[in-house]
């Protein structure tokens, strides 16, 4: 359910405003709204001072965020951080942060340089290595020896696979140098030709201008490798590449030794900065008159008295809390979902789509009941259900032990757990244990019908459609009730019309299948026609078309539940195929083959029915009533990042 919210106004003496805000932040009960703007009031004095402090704190926050980000190495613990004493001494805080930031920046630059070197060196090394074999004598001469004999070298990479570009380069060099150069080339990688040019040292400028073309990548050696022979350069580069990981490890260790001792302080500083920034923002939202201040905000209705009592205890009659008695369906109200423990993990699955609008129907409980049921109806196998149950229990324990994972994952694990239980129940109805393995040993033991049999197809399809009709009609009923509460009577009548039309059509289908007496036909036709006419009349001038399409869409929604039968049948047939293949050939090969196919089917059984049942909830069920667009309830003083985890 959605917790009903009350809009409260808190009035008090102007001089007590800071203290009241501090208390509200400590209590963490109220989501503050902009009282100053809403009532066209003046703000509290000191806006410029607050603005300057906010700038200082924002800069400090950026530093703590960056430093905490550098500590994010997976070694976090779940300890709650105690904030620093307030108000923060910002200059002192910045001094300490600047020292840490300078150290961390220096290490980061070193790490970046090492990473660059690790990326760049192989790109130079590879062409050089391949070119060495083309000029074995030259490769042994260092720069000094080359200079003594009046020669210089240049290595370039052409971004092409085509030999004719090498020939073109050679022709250009011939035009400038005649025969006074040597050019060796080889393919160094896909789309790149490496070239080594040996030329008279006095022609260096001219050669480099020829080599400066757009399709040419010059390979300039890093400083540390200058002056070596080509052979020595390649060897030195290889050694350097071997050294880089160790140097990176040293830099990481240095960073850890710099930041880890400060981790708890950093987390505490960050928490305190956020709290101060939150307080400054809240102060700006207060309205003020000459002698009083006004704060406005939202509180869970059940906690208004608690708020009043807490402020009364601290400030006595100096502060007044007034409930402004807004409508419980006020769309401006923030939304807080609170459901029973069993259904709580499903809240995240509802939020995953969208947060419901304030005052609307919270579908969490219904989703907690129906989503696993549909999952189970699709899987419907005692063997798979048992395995999924074990997997879900193990996954749940692992999540609980690590106190990690997103709420969505926790929700999916709960769906898997409950869905596995329902799978066992439906498995008993369908008589399936790893497909027809149970039937092979025990004979026909299904409590209802064996799914893959021809006789079961029609009842299975009807069962799926019946679930769909009930689910969609339930959604439409909720939609009509909700529209009535929102005083949207047109929407309400539209939903009621659709319910009538679908109920009438369901009755007619029941009659066609022989489930209802002949006397039911006339009321069913009347109900269908009345519902259809009601929907059409509410759709205006184009109602004949759009109204009919609306009802047709609902019928499509109901038929969409046939996927319960379709996905289930596919799973059952695949299990039977696994058993059939397992019975061919020697028994040990059979067991291996059957195990492989059952494992594949189990993986599909965990994934596909989950997606399909979620879709049935989101599209077909929610589509009948769900109104999204809610704003989450974020009370002042309960900043989500307030309880930062410390690093160890």
């Amino acid at each position, binding site marked *: 359910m959605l917790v009903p919210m009350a809009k409260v106004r808190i009035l008090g003496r102007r001089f007590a405003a800071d203290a009241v805000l501090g208390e509200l932040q400590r209590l963490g009960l109220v989501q503050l709204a902009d009282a100053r703007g809403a009532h066209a009031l003046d703000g509290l004095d000191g806006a410029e001072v607050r603005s300057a402090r906010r700038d200082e704190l924002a800069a400090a926050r950026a530093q703590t965020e960056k430093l905490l980000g550098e500590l994010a190495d997976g070694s976090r613990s779940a300890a709650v951080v105690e904030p620093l004493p307030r108000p923060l001494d910002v200059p002192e805080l910045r001094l300490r942060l600047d020292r840490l930031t300078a150290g961390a920046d220096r290490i980061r630059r070193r790490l970046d340089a090492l990473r660059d070197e690790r990326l760049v060196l192989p790109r130079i090394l590879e062409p050089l290595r391949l070119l060495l074999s083309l000029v074995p004598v030259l490769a042994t001469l260092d720069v000094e020896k080359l200079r003594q004999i009046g020669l210089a070298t240049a290595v370039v990479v052409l971004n092409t696979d085509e030999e004719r570009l090498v020939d073109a380069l050679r022709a250009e060099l011939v035009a400038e140098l005649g025969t006074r150069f040597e050019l060796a080339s080889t393919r160094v990688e896909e789309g790149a030709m490496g070239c080594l040019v040996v030329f008279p040292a006095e022609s260096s400028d001219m050669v480099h201008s020829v080599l400066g073309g757009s399709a040419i990548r010059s390979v300039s050696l890093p400083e540390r490798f200058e002056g070596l022979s080509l052979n020595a350069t390649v060897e030195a580069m290889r050694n350097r590449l071997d050294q880089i990981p160790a140097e990176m490890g040293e830099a990481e260790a240095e960073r850890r030794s710099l930041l880890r001792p400060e981790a708890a302080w950093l987390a505490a500083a960050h928490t305190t900065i956020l709290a101060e920034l939150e307080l400054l923002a809240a102060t700006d939202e207060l309205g003020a008159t000459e002698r009083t201040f006004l704060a406005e905000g939202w509180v869970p209705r059940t906690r208004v008295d608690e708020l009043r009592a807490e402020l009364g205890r601290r400030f006595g009659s100096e502060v007044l809390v007034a409930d402004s008695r807004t409508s419980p369906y006020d769309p401006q109200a923030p939304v807080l979902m609170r459901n029973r423990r069993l259904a709580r993990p499903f809240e995240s699955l509802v939020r*995953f*789509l*969208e947060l419901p609008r304030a005052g609307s129907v919270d579908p969490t409980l219904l989703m907690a009941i129906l989503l696993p049921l549909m999952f189970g109806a699709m899987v419907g196998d005692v063997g798979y259900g048992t395995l999924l149950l074990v997997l879900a229990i193990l996954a749940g324990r692992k999540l609980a032990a690590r106190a990690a994972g997103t709420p969505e994952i926790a929700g999916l694990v709960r769906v898997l757990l409950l869905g596995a239980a329902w799978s066992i129940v439906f498995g008993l109805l369908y008589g399936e244990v790893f497909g027809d393995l149970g039937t092979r040993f025990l004979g026909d033991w299904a409590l209802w019908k064996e799914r893959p049999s021809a006789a079961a*197809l*029609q009842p299975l*399809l009807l069962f799926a459609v019946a679930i769909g009709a009930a689910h969609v009609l339930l959604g439409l009923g909720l939609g009509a009730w909700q529209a009535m509460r929102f005083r949207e009577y047109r929407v309400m009548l539209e939903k009621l019309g659709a319910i009538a039309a679908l109920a009438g059509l369901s009755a007619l289908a029941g009659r066609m299948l022989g489930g209802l007496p002949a006397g039911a036909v006339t009321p069913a036709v009347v109900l269908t026609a009345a519902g259809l006419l009601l929907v059409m009349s509410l759709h205006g001038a184009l109602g004949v078309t759009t109204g009919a399409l609306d009802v047709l869409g609902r019928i*499509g929604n109901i*038929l*969409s539940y*046939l*996927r319960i039968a*379709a996905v289930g049948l596919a799973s059952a047939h695949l299990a039977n195929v696994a058993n059939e293949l397992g019975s061919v050939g020697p028994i040990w090969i059979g067991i291996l083959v059957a195990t492989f196919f059952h494992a594949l089917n189990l993986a599909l059984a965990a994934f596909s029915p989950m*997606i*399909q049942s979620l*879709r049935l909830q*989101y*599209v077909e069920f929610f589509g009948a009533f769900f109104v999204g667009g809610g704003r989450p309830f974020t009370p002042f003083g309960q900043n989500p990042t307030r309880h930062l985890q410390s690093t160890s």
Partner: protein
Amino acid sequence: METGLIAIGAGLAIGLSALATGYAQARIGAASMGLIAEKPELAGRAILLVAIPETLVILGFAVAAMIIVLL
């Protein structure tokens, strides 16, 4: 012969609708990935949009099942 034609009809009903669903989901899926890259908070909506064309293949399944059951 008649059984064969029934089977072909049922196969066409589900096969063609599956192709249509695949085509629609490919287009919507590609657009959804772009949407999620820009606005990750709309992932739920994106999944919902990708799931919508599946009704086509389910209706194809319904028609195939009716062909098999009723003929």
